[in-house]
């Protein structure tokens, strides 16, 4: 008696609907614009700063006399490194609201009582945040374009650098979403995400004094350690594996947190 619809494409369509809704929410609030604006500002600042350093090198102001410098080595690699730091500080704000706000306002009840699986919700939210991140990152293509216009950088390390940024940003987002799903308070979500990411950044700083095995383990865990090779133009499966498992762990924790919220009310 009631309308029934084919279900084959439904699951993907649900995910996309959710991702679209997420993305939209960023753009109707000042969030996306603030994020884009400050990211562009900071990235531009680092861009000029690393260009200055490179120019000083090439003009021989460090005492070696004028010389040709490698654009990739002297400009792009430090720039990617600095971008990683900007992301570490900004992405927690991108993910903080994702679940916390839905839980606070009661719309989580809508999602969880709709014919959506937890996995669809989790993937939808992740895709939404990732899309915003990719859009934000694409702002930097202008700067890179200028480098290609005036200079002659190798495109390989640039491509691998972007891949690294995507994977690393994905990890940040995945952790942020997991933490957002554990609270109703955006502030708490953002702050905790930032603290956790910072911890994963500096985790190997105490390793030096405590024996080589610990050092190896802590170094492996460090989230920025794995990024360096990407900015050098090396795509190492170890690093890819690290980031992919990082993302998967974050999504898994989100699933666990949604499930436990359900049982504990």
């Amino acid at each position, binding site marked *: 008696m009631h309308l029934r619809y084919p279900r084959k494409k439904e699951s993907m*369509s649900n995910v996309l609907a959710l991702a679209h809704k997420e993305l939209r929410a960023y753009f109707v609030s000042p969030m996306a614009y603030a994020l884009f604006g400050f990211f562009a500002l900071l990235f531009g600042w680092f861009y000029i700063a690393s260009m200055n350093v490179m120019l000083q090198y090439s003009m021989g102001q460090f005492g070696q006399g004028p010389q040709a410098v490698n654009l990739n080595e002297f400009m792009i690699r430090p720039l990617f490194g600095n971008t990683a730091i900007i992301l570490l500080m900004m992405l927690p704000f991108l993910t903080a609201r994702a679940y916390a706000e839905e839980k606070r306002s009661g719309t989580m009840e809508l999602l969880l009582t709709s*014919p959506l699986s937890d996995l669809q919700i989790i993937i939808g939210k992740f895709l939404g945040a990732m899309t915003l991140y990719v859009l934000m990152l694409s702002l930097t293509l202008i700067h890179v374009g200028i480098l290609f216009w005036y200079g002659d950088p190798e495109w390989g390390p640039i491509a691998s650098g972007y891949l690294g940024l995507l994977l690393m940003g994905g990890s940040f987002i995945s952790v942020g979403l997991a933490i957002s799903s554990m609270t109703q308070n955006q502030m708490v979500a953002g702050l905790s995400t930032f603290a956790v990411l910072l911890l994963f950044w500096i985790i190997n700083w105490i390793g030096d004094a405590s024996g080589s095995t610990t050092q190896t383990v802590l170094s492996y865990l460090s989230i920025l350690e794995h990024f360096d090779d990407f900015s050098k133009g090396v795509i190492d499966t170890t690093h890819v594996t690290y980031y992919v498992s990082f993302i998967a762990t974050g999504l898994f924790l989100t699933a666990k947190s949604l499930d436990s919220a359900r049982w504990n009310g």
Partner: protein
Amino acid sequence: MVEVQHVTKRYGSLTAVDDISFRVEPGEILGFLGPNGAGKTTTMRILTGFLPATEGHARIAGFDVFDHPLEAKRRTGYLPETPPLYPEMTVEEYLRFVARINGLPSSEGRRQAGLAMERTRISDMADRFCGKLSKGYRQRVGLAQAILHNPDVLILDEPTAGLDPRQIIETRRLIRELAGDHTVILSTHILPEVSQTCQRVVIINRGRVVAVDTPDNLTARLQGSQTVYLQIDAPGADVVAALQAVPGVARVSEVEGRDGDTGYEVESSDGGDVRRELSHAVVTRGWGLLELRPQQMSLEDIFLQLTTEEPPSDLAQSDDGTAPDAFALSTEEGVHE
């Protein structure tokens, strides 16, 4: 259409819902009545798959909400206590989003959103942001969201809360209209709502079902045993014992009268009229009979009686001293199938 079997929900040591069972037939409107905190919302959340039950089973259109959540959710429309709206979406965008996560294709979603807006009379609000709507409109958008995908079962948690009287009447009319195609469960703590909208009532208190019946039957059955209020001038005498001795009297209790005097409530067994016998008993003892009147039991009294912890005159304890929870009404018909 909806079956709830021995559902229990515990949070640690707190039992929010305790062994609840009932069923709802297709096309029926079932009222879920109880004081705040009785477990209405928890039960509804279990039915909608938002919360898992600690024990027991709930089925929607034959699908267990725990084992086949998606199938059950597809057939359920749910209006939570606070309408789950996204403030940054317009009414139409919101409804189309809900249509999409319910699996309707885009064009069909647009059509159903339009229909739902018409039915809930919010078409003129289509382009307004949900965050800017008044409470009454929010509630209606919530209702539109619930009926959007033509679910078999509608679960409405306090659908008229916060509405003005005219909106309440409109909403109740709408719910009655919907009942033909949908099975409706609505919760409320407002009694007239139940007698006006529902075909059957589940009264729930402290997480337990206290009674399941039609509003009329509920009133009739409780009136079956009649209560008479007496005020007697008999200083120092043991009035309770004397009244208790009158044939046909089930129970006598001392109550506070209107102006602070002591009065007595007398319940007759098997609904008999004992007024004549009572007045005779009083008069022959030489006491002054100041007042004698039958107590009318409204649905309100029944509700209070069934849900108050220790009522002054508890029908349920009349014969065999069983607890109110085990009160006969709750079982025979509605509950265990």
